[in-house]
């Protein structure tokens, strides 16, 4: 998959109404690999914080269920984060407003992350 292909897939995610950013990040170092951002959201900051959240969530999931998570979802008062695992250490991360069509977003993020493998 070329860089252009990856960016095209991220643009599919941000085309969903309410999505503010879609990015591919390496969760081991918390750095952005590719990004598509609407507005002034700081993709680098999002990648660092979500990567830390995913690492801790993975530790929790392994401790509780004996297996790592494939999809992580965080529902907050003012936003949603959906992240799906691609090939290690890459994750596809979407940041959206609370009124976003969540089912569609989860499906698309999961599908596209699977294509990173």
């Amino acid at each position: 998959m070329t860089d252009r292909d990856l960016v095209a897939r991220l643009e599919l995610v941000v085309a969903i109404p309410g999505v503010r950013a879609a990015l591919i990040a390496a969760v081991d170092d918390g750095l952005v690999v590719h990004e598509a951002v609407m507005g002034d959201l700081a993709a680098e900051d999002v990648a660092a914080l979500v990567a830390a959240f995913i690492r801790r969530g993975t530790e929790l999931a392994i401790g509780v269920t004996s297996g790592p998570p494939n999809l992580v979802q965080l529902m907050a008062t003012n936003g949603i984060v959906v992240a799906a695992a691609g090939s290690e250490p890459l994750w596809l991360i979407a940041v959206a407003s609370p009124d976003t069509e969540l089912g569609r977003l989860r499906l698309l993020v999961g599908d596209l992350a699977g294509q990173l493998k």
Partner: protein
Amino acid sequence: MRVLEPWVAEPLTELVRESGARLALIMTASGQVVAQYGFARSLDVMAASSLGAGILATTAALARLTGESGDFGAVVHQGGGRGVWLAGFDTPRGRWIGLVVFGNESSIGLIRLFFGRFAAQLAAATPGPVIGRELLAEGFERELDQSLRALFGTEG
């Protein structure tokens, strides 16, 4: 944590707490230590500060050679279990350097994020330059002793 300048304490505490850093060292561009967190021996601090200042000076020269305006901003050394983040930042007292050692519980991204906030907080909290302060010559050894006592208490 030990600090020579009291306004450094709060931003450094936040940097360490939020980023999960294991060691931190704040120094002037010439390698004079301003604050440290996590170091147990003064020799380690002196070695780390001089090496850190030297690395940044070297990479700044490399930056000029490769056509980069200014310096590279940050230098990261990543090992299997530990990483080192080394970056310069501007304060009202001139250019300072931060050296942060982190483990696998943190990441380059987190250190980058919280170091940026630290540098901004510190720049806002730092008073202007001190006029006429004795830095070298006959006062050097006395000032060095005072600094080491402040950074390490009675041990040295």
